[in-house]
């Protein structure tokens, strides 16, 4: 029987949650025995070419590309998990949510104390994904099956959640592994 497949991605996140996954230490060897990685920065696979059992989403949606990737994950993953505070509540990027987009652009490209931009233009190359009006948690964009909060979630939380899902046990994290910081 083929091993279950796991895909991961980082949307509007800092890759800290992926670091936390690596923080399971030598259990990473057991993980490699348990699963195959599909589309993920861990193996640098860029595209899905079939269904995947578990998708781990780090980061919320701050731009149109994030939304497309998240929808792609939802389409291909049987179980989708929001990993970390950015995916579950927007996180640090969502601090801009009370501020109009035009003010964010002006601060980033025109008025910020370290900005050097003699042309006074705000980048608008078609290659650049358009920002959304605000940063959205993943479950406000697609259906998400589980949430693992934390900034980042403890490595043990990720490990226990994966093992529970892979062995068909209920995913119930103990008190000390549900943390928002």
């Amino acid at each position, binding site marked *: 029987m083929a091993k279950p497949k796991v895909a991961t991605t980082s949307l509007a996140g800092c890759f800290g949650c992926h670091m936390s996954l690596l923080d399971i230490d030598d259990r990473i060897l057991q993980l490699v025995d348990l699963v195959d990685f599909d589309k993920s920065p861990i193996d640098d696979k860029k595209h899905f070419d079939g269904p995947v059992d578990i998708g781990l989403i780090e980061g919320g949606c701050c731009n149109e590309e994030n939304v497309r990737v998240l929808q792609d994950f939802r389409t291909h993953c049987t179980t989708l998990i929001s990993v970390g505070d950015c995916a579950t509540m927007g996180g640090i990027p*969502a601090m801009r949510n009370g501020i109009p987009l035009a003010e964010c652009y002006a601060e980033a490209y025109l008025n910020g104390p370290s900005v050097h931009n003699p042309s006074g233009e705000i980048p608008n190359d078609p290659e650049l994904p358009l920002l959304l009006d605000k940063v959205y948690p993943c479950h406000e964009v697609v259906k998400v099956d589980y949430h693992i909060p934390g900034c980042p979630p403890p490595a043990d939380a990720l490990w226990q959640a994966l093992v529970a899902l892979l062995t068909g046990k209920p995913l119930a994290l103990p008190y000390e592994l549900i943390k928002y910081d």
Partner: protein
Amino acid sequence: MADGMTITIDDRTISAQPGQTVLEAAQAAGIYIPRLCHREGLTPGGACRVCVVLVNGRPQSACTLPVTPGMVVENDSPRMHEHRKRIIEMLFVEGNHFCMFCEKSGNCELQALAYRFGIAAPRYPYQFPRRSVDASHPDIFIDHNRCVLCARCIRASRDLDGKNVFQFVGRGVHKRVGVNARARLVDTDADVSDAAVEACPVGAILKKRVGYAVPVGMRLYDHAPIGADIEAEAKA
């Protein structure tokens, strides 16, 4: 037995004294009724509704309701858990609660309630309101992003400090804690040693220059849930 009475909480019969609230009687018997706006030493407010229990089948806030003989209270049941979880979730989406960098994280009663109820993510859409920070005072600041409108600071300042520094202004979603000055906290009598500063359950009113003093793993709610101390007394 002239003054005593008994009440029933979740099929447990406990004794209670006249003048006690349901919450106090339960606590004296080692039963934890979750609460947020209630704080010992302050006049009960009944503001947050986290402590709502069913008394003879009707929802009542346990922090304000006096005991009466023979009352039947439902506290620790699936439907009451669900009710409280939803209130806590609403409090999270209504403000801007960025636990990951908040000085109060680990010692925050709102966060601790969410941990106790095992909330991984709220089921309501986040509102992300635009709120202000008043850092004008040299020793304390108010971050309205984190305020849950529990009125603890208002009651503590009025009843314990005798200062009336804080009061509510506005209505509905515009309601917020205002200060008793034209605009800023620095223009009030507020002092870093005020009971009102200690009374804040979240990170809305904080002392300056003392944040993050306790390392992760040694904070109030890192290992044991909020209310565990009350429940431990029952077992002892």
